[in-house]
């Protein structure tokens, strides 16, 4: 994971992970992720984890940690490039927390629901779903 003392800014070519904690936010039929997984929450910022300088095991450990504190099941993660968010006019910023220096957030979502949905649809279409293998 990133050095907490030296967090670089998020770059467009970086890969991000969105942990999927609800079983109906991905499609078993073709292992793809649904746009609902990318819809902004009431807090308006979408929580993400940067792959930068993180091992696969490290990413999964963070996913397990997130699922554990939320008493949820980690089904998998959706990997998507930062550009997918930028193309929709969203901002992606580094938002490190003590437990996760790779934590980031996508913000600048529009207020109206249909606009949020079309952006989430576009992002989901560019994402790759990676199921959690237990």
């Amino acid at each position, binding site marked *: 994971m990133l050095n907490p003392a030296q967090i670089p800014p998020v770059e467009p070519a970086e890969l991000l992970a969105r942990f999927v*904690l*609800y*079983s*109906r*936010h991905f*499609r078993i039929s073709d292992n*793809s992720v*649904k*746009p*609902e997984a990318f*819809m*902004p*929450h*009431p*807090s308006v910022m979408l*929580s993400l984890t940067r792959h930068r300088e993180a091992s696969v095991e490290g990413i999964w450990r963070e996913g397990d940690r*997130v*699922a554990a504190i*939320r*008493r*949820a099941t980690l089904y998998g993660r959706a990997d998507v490039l930062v550009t997918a968010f930028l193309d929709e006019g969203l901002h992606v910023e580094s938002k490190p927390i003590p437990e996760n220096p790779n934590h980031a957030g996508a913000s600048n979502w529009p207020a*109206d*629901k*249909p*606009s949020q*949905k*079309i952006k*989430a*649809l*576009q992002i989901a*279409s560019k994402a790759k779903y990676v199921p959690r293998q237990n």
Partner: protein
Amino acid sequence: MTVATPYASEFIDQAVRRPQEQLRSSTLGHQESLEELGEVWDECRHANWDGYNALPVAQETLCGTYQLIASLPLGFPRPSISAEPDGQLTLEWRKSPGRVLSVSVAPDGLLHYAGLFGPNKRYGTLVFFRPFREN
């Protein structure tokens, strides 16, 4: 040229048109979707159902989604049902990554939709029904 008599019109109305309307409004053809709706409702009617502090799905939303599914013509492709963090339920029809329609049902009777149709995209809001109110 023959002109239908009042008797023939009444016969057609009773024998054909009314049963068709009843069949169209019947939920029998959407049983699987309604069962899936029940499962989603059960999973999402409490706060934080997605692990990210999602809002619970309200009963008005459940009823509105039921009405929407029941209004679909028989034979209409079955949607995939899910929920969003703001507590709205979603119906999705997807043919491929670039051809997908998602409809969100809000508790106030509005439908918010967004769709990708190849190079085109469409999104907006429709008024579908009056909010369900418990008597």
